[in-house]
């Protein structure tokens, strides 16, 4: 209920409400961008831009777009993926299109110790690579079920239930 009020106030361009939402989600959104870009400094800059976008697009959010977090997750994802596709970035980094979530803690030295590798590892403990990839594609890449099915060469019907069991493992690791 409280979140709904906050979102309503934010949609009425209430900066205080927006500040609260920012503090609720900034680190997570910044994390999503960093999973995609694997570049902490650039991710911080983009995260800043994403929140400006969120403010500018506030009237476009409605419940048919799902949870508020899901809506801003989508904006963050698209911004980061656009960045990845942009020329300037292509020159700096190699192909990052696959396994970004897997890669991010395997190559954690590259990230100047800026991220909470231990937290990430403990959340993903015991998860098969297949699981991590599935989560990566759906949450951090914004793939549809159909696209995931094609990418993983898996029947579309099994994706939902497999996703549930993968997320359950993370939830167990949180406990």
């Amino acid at each position, binding site marked *: 209920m409280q979140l709904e009020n906050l979102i309503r106030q934010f949609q009425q361009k209430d900066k205080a409400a927006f500040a609260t939402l920012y503090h609720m989600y900034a680190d997570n959104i910044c994390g999503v961008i960093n999973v995609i870009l694997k570049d902490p400094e650039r991710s911080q800059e983009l995260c800043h831009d994403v929140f400006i976008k969120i403010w500018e697009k506030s009237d476009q959010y409605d419940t048919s777009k799902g949870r508020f977090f899901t809506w801003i997750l989508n904006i963050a994802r698209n911004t980061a993926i656009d960045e990845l596709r942009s020329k300037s970035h292509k020159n700096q980094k190699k192909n990052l299109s696959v396994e970004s979530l897997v890669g991010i803690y395997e190559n954690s030295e590259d990230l100047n110790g800026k991220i909470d590798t231990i937290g990430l590892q403990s959340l993903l403990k015991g998860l098969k690579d297949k699981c991590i990839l599935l989560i990566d594609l759906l949450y951090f890449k914004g793939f549809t079920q159909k696209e995931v099915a094609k990418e993983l060469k898996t029947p579309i019907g099994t994706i939902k239930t497999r996703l*549930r069991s993968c997320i359950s493992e993370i939830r167990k690791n949180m406990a």
Partner: protein
Amino acid sequence: MSMEVDKYIASGILELYVAGALTPEQNLEVQHYALQYPEIQKEIEAIELAILKLAASASPKMPENGFDQIKSELGNVIQFTPVESKRKAPWGGYLGWAASVALAIGLFWLYSENRNLKSEIEISGQEKLKLEETLSNTQEAIVRKESLLEQLRDQNVTVISLGGQTISPSSYAKAYWNREDNKVIIDAQGLPEPPAGFTYQVWSLKLDPLTPTSIGLLDDFSIESDRLFVLENSNDSEAFGITLEPEGGSELPTLEQLYTLGAVGR
């Protein structure tokens, strides 16, 4: 017919909902169920929390003053800086005053127009939310009715008329029994609303000797406005009866409270 919440949760649709991988219609449907069933709402929040944690653990963290930097860029207004004017003839001065009064009136008019527009937008926003809610309710009702209609029209369905009994001769009900699917749809439109603390219970009956087997309760009688109930029935029924029982149902039917009864035509 109450929804099978556990099955719905176990299907993984809520994980897809949080990922944003559903269509707008499916999103509205999930929200509708979340409003109706607190377990679903809780589950959505738990899934979201897992993703939030995962994302946060990969975060380079935003600087302490991150929001101040953003705030300074929100809705930047171009400042109006007055230019020092040279002293002119007195007429110019009067004209200047007149112009600023006109400007002030104009600005005030713009300001109040703007306020009106804002409140109109707010009202349409609220109306939109209400309409979305109504739409999702309607869509859900249509889907339910279409599926019921389809089930009623199935060629394997036997229709059994249940006639009113001594306690309530004007009552009636219909049973649509699909032997292939082991399902019975009870149309309870012709039963009076049960008194508080009581519920209708449906029985499958074998006649010789008389053996009743409960196949379910007609709960939520007043809320289920169409009064159509889908029940499981794998019995080799020879008749169906509906009795009024204390809430929660009974082991055996209370025969004095038998409202309707009907035999299966062979």
